[in-house]
Structure formats: C-alpha cells, structure tokens
C-alpha cells in the first residue's frame, strides 16, 4: 500500500492521468458539441471504435500518418452522420439507432480486421503506425512537472487544445451561435432559415471528428495496435462526463480529468494484491458513483 501511495504522489502518476484522460476528453467534447445542438451522440462508442480501426488499417497500408489521420477522422464523421440521418431523416429512435451503430462498429471492425490480418483479436500482425511523442523543449527542462507535462503523444496535447477550440467554436463563431440556437429551440432557428437538420448534422460531424480523434489516439498512441472492442465503454462514460460537465468547455475538461484520475488510480492499484477483475471494473463503477453525486448535488440546488 505504501508503495502505491508513493507512486501516486509521483510525477509518473500525473503523466498517467494526462495519458488516460486524453481519449475521454476527446469523447466528452464530442458528446458535448452534439448536446449543444440538442442531440445525444449515443453512437460515440462506435465512432471511436471504427476510427481506431480505420486509422490502424490505413496507416498499415499507406505508412502515412497524415492520410491515416484524415481517413480515420472521416470514418468517425461519416459514422456520426449516419446516426443523424437515421434519427432525423428516417425518424428512428436515436437510442435504438445508436445501439445498432455501436453493434455495427463492433461487428464491422472485427469483420474487416479478420479480412485484413487473419486475426479476430488484435491487429499486431498489421504493421501500423503511431502518432509521435512530443518533447517540449522548455517545459521538458522544468523540475518535477517537466517530466509530467512533456513527452506526451501529439494527440494528448491536441486534446487539451481541443477544449479551447470547442470554446471558441461554440461561443465566438456564427456556427456555434446557430448550434446553440438549434439546441435551445429548433423552431427559432428554422424560422430564420437555418436548417435544423443541417446544423445538427454539422454538430454531429464535429462530434464525430472529436470522437474519431479519441479513437485514433487509442490505437495509434495509447497503444499501437487495434484490439476487438478496445474502446471498452469510453464512449458511454463520455456521455456521463459531458452531463456532469454541463456540456460546457470547462466543465467537460474538469469532468474528464476526474474520470481520468479514477482510471489512473485503477492502473496504479494493479500493483496491489487485489484481483484484477476488481481493478477493471473501477472506471464503470466510478461513472455510476459520479453520476449519483452529480444528481444529488443538482437535486439540492433545486
């Protein structure tokens, strides 16, 4: 136990938090953007999974990171647009079509993985790439925090930058104003000729893009392979995180870090003599606990 405590107060622990927060942060931003337009992106789990796979596949085929990034993002965006199309144009219940799309991603990635690599579990036989690790010259030299803040994956830095992008997009641009208007009162937007469908689709596309970055990070940064169902519920945890964060930039950032912290703790507990099954379920249990606290707190406010 002492060893665990010691390691929790170490620089490595902060490093781990940032590392495990990254995919959750992307996913939560994704959920939050679509939520601002009044759509819950139930398919985010599938989006992340599909992009994670496509990124690995394309990088193995092209050996080009930029192309992998672009096609991986497109994969996520198109998946998000499918959710929008089915729920809005074809009037499907969004939860049911979300369930279907998540299943589609789960089946399709294994299907394609098998065709591409002959393996149904992991993509290790594919020679895929990863996004580079960045050492920031000045910060790297700082005592203590230098080691925690420098040396992360490029996508980790981009994830924190994305919070700012999200903020500017939603509050400082006409697109953001329209997304908020559509979310608050779709009729208000349509009455002035703003297409509710297009705006929501745009928000979903952005949501899909950030979800895709989360997926790409998982398979091309966090680890360097694709594994069956490797997103492991992060897309759903993000729905919880975004809710707790009020679907707003700062809130989403703080909630994601909170969830990331829990995950990091779980990883550090692995050195204790606790059955690994208990460690594995911590993130999911924590999600429920946080939702309960959040709900109790907002209930008191009212």
């Amino acid at each position: 136990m002492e060893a665990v405590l010691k390691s929790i107060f170490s620089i490595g622990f902060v490093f781990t938090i940032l590392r495990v927060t990254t995919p959750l942060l992307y996913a939560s931003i994704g959920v939050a953007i679509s939520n601002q337009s009044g759509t819950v992106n139930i398919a985010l789990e599938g989006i992340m999974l599909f992009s994670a796979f496509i990124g690995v596949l394309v990088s193995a085929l092209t050996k080009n990171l930029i192309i992998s990034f672009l096609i991986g993002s497109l994969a996520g965006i198109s998946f998000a647009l499918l959710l929008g199309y089915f729920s809005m144009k074809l009037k499907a219940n969004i939860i049911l079509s979300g369930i279907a799309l998540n299943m589609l991603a789960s089946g399709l990635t294994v299907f394609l993985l098998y065709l591409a690599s002959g393996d149904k579990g992991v993509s290790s036989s594919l020679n895929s790439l990863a996004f580079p690790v960045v050492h920031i010259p000045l910060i790297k030299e700082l005592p203590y925090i230098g080691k925690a803040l420098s040396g992360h994956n490029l996508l980790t830095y981009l994830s924190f930058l994305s919070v700012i992008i999200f903020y500017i997009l939603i509050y400082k641009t006409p697109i953001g104003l329209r997304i908020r208007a559509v979310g608050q009162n779709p009729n208000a937007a349509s009455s002035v000729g703003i297409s509710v469908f297009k705006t929501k689709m745009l928000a979903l596309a952005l949501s899909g893009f950030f979800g895709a970055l989360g997926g790409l990070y998982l398979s091309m940064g966090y680890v360097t392979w694709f594994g069956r169902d490797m997103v492991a519920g992060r897309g759903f945890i993000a729905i919880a995180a975004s809710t707790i964060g009020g679907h707003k930039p700062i809130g989403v950032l703080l909630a994601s870090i909170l969830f990331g912290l829990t995950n990091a703790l779980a990883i550090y507990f692995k050195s204790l003599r606790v059955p690994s099954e208990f460690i594995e379920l911590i993130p999911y249990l924590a999600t429920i606990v946080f939702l309960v606290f959040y709900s109790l707190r907002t209930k008191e406010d009212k």
Partner: protein
Amino acid sequence: MRGFILKYFDLIRVLLSISIGLTLAFIIMFLVSDNPLLSIRSLLIGPLASRSRLSFIFETATPLIFCGLAASIPFQAKQFWVGAEGALYFGGTLGTAFALLTRFPSGLHHFLLLAFVFIVGMFVGLIPALLKTRLKINEFVTSLMFNFILYYSGLYIINFHFRDQAAGYLVSNAIPKTVLLAQFIPRTRIHLGIIFALIAAFLVYIFLFHTKWGYEIRMVGANLSFAKYGGINVKRVILYSIVLGGALAAMGGMIEVMGIHGRFNWQASPGYGWNGIMAAIIAGNHPLLIIVTSLFISYLITGAQIVNLVTDIPAEMVTVIQAIIILLVTSQAFLEFWRHRLIVKEAAKDGSSS
C-alpha cells in the same frame, strides 16, 4: 391491394428491412469471398443441412428468447434498459455458485435454483431502476456500465471461488446433476430450456396485454405524462418493468448453463443479451414475435458460423447484417413516403366516390 398493403404495412416494412440487410450481406460476400456462391449457400441453407445444425438454431434461440423478453418489458415502457447482457452473465455466475453450494433432490433443486436466479436478476435490474426513479439518472448509461461491472464481478466469482483447477482454461466446476436440464431430443443438445423459453414468452405476452400491470407498462411507454395524469404510479411501473427485465435475462443465463454446458464456461460475455435486444426490436417488443425473431437471428448466427468454417468470411458478418436490419426497422420514416402516397390515393378514391 392498396388496402392490404396499408393494413400489413408494418410487417411488410420489417420483411423489406430484413431483405435489404441480407442483400447487403450477399453483396459483401461477392466482394470479399473467393467463393461467393458457396458462402451464400452456407449462410442460407447451411443451418438446415444437418440435425446438429438445426439443433444449434434452437439451442442458441433459447437464451435469445429470454433476453429478448427481458428487453421487451422495459422497452414497452420506453425505458432503454440494455442490461440484459450483464444480467445474463451474472445470473449464470451466481446461479452456478448456488448450484455448487447447495444439495437438494432434483426437481426441488431446479426450482430453488431458478427462483434464486430470478431474484438475483431482479436485484440486478433494481439498481439502475432505482437510480432512474429516485435520481433521474439515465438508465441507458447506467445499465451499460453495469454490464461491465457485472461481467468483471462474475468473472471474479468464478475465477477465485468456483474455478475448475483441473481444466486448462477458466471454467467452473461441473454443477450437480440435480440441476441439469434434460436434453430431450436424441442426438441434439436441445434441452428443456426451450420449453421454458416458450412458456416465458407466452406468460410475458399475457402479462403485457392482458393484465393491469402490462396495461400500465404500455401506457407509460405510449405517453408517460398521460399515464401519470390517469393516476398510474409511473415510478413504480418503471421500477418493475426493469426489475422483471433483469430477472428474465438472468434466468436465460442460468438455463443456458443448466441445459448446455453443465458448468459456467463464459470467459467472455457471450453476446446473447445484445442479440436478444436485437430480437426484441425487430419484433416490435411483442413477446410472441420475439420467438420468431430469436429463431431468425439464431438461424443467421448459425449460418454465419458455417460460412466462417467453410469459407474465408468471418462470422461477425452477422452482427453487421443485424445492425443494418435494426437501423431500417427502427426508422419510422423508412418507406413512409410510399405509405403516404397510398393514403393520399385512398383518400382521393374515397373523395371521388362520396
């Protein structure tokens, strides 16, 4: 003809969705298979080609029917509880534990075991249900989280307490003969569980459409504010719809253990819960139709596994087909333009004749 189409429009829509899903599957097979005709034949005719394969359809359908029914009750109340997978897994683990720890004569042991599993399933449903009714926490997210939590908890229970140390992989000790379900058709593994599943489907049908509680559930699903206004205790309805869902899924899990394997042997979650949810959605949450759709899905699963054996196409194709069917089936506007045109023509006909 027009009137006929309008009357059976929903059925026609489902059948068309299924056809489109299958057609897409055929196209995929033509694109990726070295021997597409063999693949298609294996998928469609393969499952019917031998006794053991036919048997497999019915075996697989058994837990699907339970999970489909489990999903249908909360779905009828428009509660998107998707915890069947976790409830099935956990029902299987705790049921196995109960079977291994207790000694009773056969018959009584069966009854006590299933009653125990039923109660376990109720508790599994109770937590997300209470979170929903007390704290307004979305049941979809919590039931998903519980799928993971129950999976890991079940895995722990089997791994640390009931593991068969002699086996080379993670399975429980064999459960006593006093709780096994008879396989009653020679040279198949079809067991009494299918009978239980059929009875359960019938009971759920009676429950939903012929009892006061079923009426309450359907009213809450049709319009929650209306149900509340009419004096229905909505929170209670939400609670028992999900609790019953949990109980049915847990039963499905344990019955599978009792009928097929005789021990708990799911290292990974078997996916019956999700397939059951698919069966329920395609059936429009109608308990009797769930029997049909479960058999259909399990026919597809069987076919896909044969395809996987004889050709180069992985069985996960069936998940893709299912997902596409679900997308189309749940799309209320799919073919709506056609229906609208039929209605306009009918209206025009009525107008000119009057």
